[in-house]
């Protein structure tokens, strides 16, 4: 008999600019806040997941936090790592291997490294040897932004998607950020502002790109039985799936279709939902195009019609739109400390608890958190709900 699994604690560190905190300080701070949020103690945590720092980081982190976990996870799939961690934690708890798991990530990317992530090295690497296909990408002079730009260019060619439609994603996300006091940028943004910002890699402008910030996040999952004893109304994990199509962008067979076209339908089927049931979408908005292509791949819009979906009815990503998206201001305006996947799960949980304040989606019952990693390389979908699958 499979056990039901719930998110019972979420914690955000200080942010978005924290020059006095190290990366592991940010992880520890968000972990402590998630424990407090859940009403759990250190000794309750039996499993730990983290990623982003190479070999054995999750082991170092366990030691640093004073944990001796018997379940460890460090799938390293870029920004989607934490949706993969959630999927694997979901399975482990469901199967009875372990009861309570913390997933933790923090990075002082902005304070430690500045804003060089997207243009600081060929393909966004530059931190050492990423071998094999990257050995061809780097010498071409492609940047991380350029890889996404190339995919966006192909979508525009194939489907007539416009720069204005991409810009609208940034504009609508900024509206959400304006309500978040911890967002990096909160001033209103117009389509013209995006299109007149400098081109970083055609067709992507500066304001088509996510911010670089500092920040940490932690979520805690446990069994439904345990969740009922804790502080908050449980948020159920209803379904999860992931996949990959390539590593370097040169190997992406169809730049207009990501592995979300596989992970989405699988996760939705497990969750017993269709796209029309989704009340709120937490999407890894590394770039405006990432949002657009995944909206299509998850079935919120037919393939090629993501641009129209984004702008229809005055903007479907706004509060009151068909699919309020990144209600905390997203990576495009609020928080992006190198990787954002975990923050998506936090915001989705806050919405389902009804704790999102001015950005609350009224009566939200189903939320989707979707991580995208690498260069559109890895995709993972997690469906959360206020009720379990029946």
């Amino acid at each position, binding site marked *: 008999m499979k056990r039901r699994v719930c998110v019972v604690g979420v914690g955000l560190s200080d942010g978005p600019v924290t020059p006095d905190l190290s990366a592991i300080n940010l992880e520890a701070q968000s972990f402590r806040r998630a424990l407090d949020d859940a009403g759990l103690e250190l000794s309750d945590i039996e499993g730990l997941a983290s990623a982003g720092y190479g070999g054995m980081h999750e082991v170092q982190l366990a030691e640093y936090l004073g944990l001796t976990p018997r379940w460890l996870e460090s799938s390293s799939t870029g920004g989607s790592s934490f949706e993969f961690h959630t999927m694997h934690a979901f399975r482990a708890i469901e199967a009875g291997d372990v009861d309570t798991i913390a997933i933790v990530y923090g990075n002082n990317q902005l304070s430690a490294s500045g804003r060089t992530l997207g243009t600081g*090295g*060929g393909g966004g690497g530059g931190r050492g040897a990423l071998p094999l296909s990257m050995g*061809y990408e780097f*010498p071409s002079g*492609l940047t991380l932004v350029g890889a996404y730009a190339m995919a966006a260019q192909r979508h525009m060619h194939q489907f007539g998607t416009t720069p204005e439609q991409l810009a609208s994603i940034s504009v609508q996300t900024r509206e959400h950020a304006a309500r978040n006091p911890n967002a990096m940028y909160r001033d209103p943004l117009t389509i013209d502002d995006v299109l007149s910002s400098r081109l970083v*890699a*055609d067709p992507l402008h500066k304001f088509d790109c996510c911010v670089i910030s500092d920040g940490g996040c932690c979520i805690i999952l446990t069994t439904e039985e345990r969740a009922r004893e804790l502080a908050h109304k449980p948020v159920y994990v209803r379904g999860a799936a992931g996949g990959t199509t390539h590593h370097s962008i040169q190997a992406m067979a169809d730049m207009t279709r990501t592995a979300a076209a596989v992970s989405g339908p699988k996760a939705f089927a497990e969750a017993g939902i269709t796209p029309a049931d989704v009340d709120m979408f937490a999407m890894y908005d590394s770039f405006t195009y990432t949002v657009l292509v995944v909206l299509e791949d998850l079935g919120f819009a037919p393939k090629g019609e993501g641009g129209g979906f984004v702008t229809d009815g005055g903007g479907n990503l706004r509060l009151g739109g068909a699919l309020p998206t990144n209600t905390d201001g997203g990576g495009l305006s609020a928080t992006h400390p190198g990787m954002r996947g975990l923050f998506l799960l936090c915001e989705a949980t806050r919405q389902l608890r009804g704790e999102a304040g001015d950005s609350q989606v009224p009566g939200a019952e189903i939320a989707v958190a979707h991580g995208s990693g690498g260069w559109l390389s890895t995709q993972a979908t997690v469906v959360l709900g206020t009720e379990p699958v029946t």
Partner: protein
Amino acid sequence: MTDAFVAHNGVSWAESPKYLWPRPNNDDREFWEGARRGELRIQRCLSCGKHQHYPRFLCSHCGKGELEWITASGLATIYSFTVVRQNGVPPFSERVPFVVAVVDLDEDGARMIAALPKLDPDAARVGLRVRAEFRPATDDAAFVDFAPAE
């Protein structure tokens, strides 16, 4: 590795981060050395007949292990491209703006990423026909760039 070869705009590869240098390995030494001779060497699968780039131990189309080296025509079509306008790393920081494209070789199944230093950014478009050009990098390797075919 010699520093005799100078990249565009006078920035030596020796002044660039090492990850930007060609790194011939067990799979792809033939590719790099072929490029140094002015030949675009790619693999063709003896089982399924498809081609692949970058070179690998197995065919990425069918998984079989019998591969032969062929010299490709050098002709290709732009699948997609971008104009890199910001890159903080030399020599690219001195070279912006420039076009980078993913191109489909005429040989079925093979796709490459490459710089197109001679292509005017305003003239770049999906579907443009391009031809390989070879830019010496070291004594035993050259970069493969592409340029408009006509």
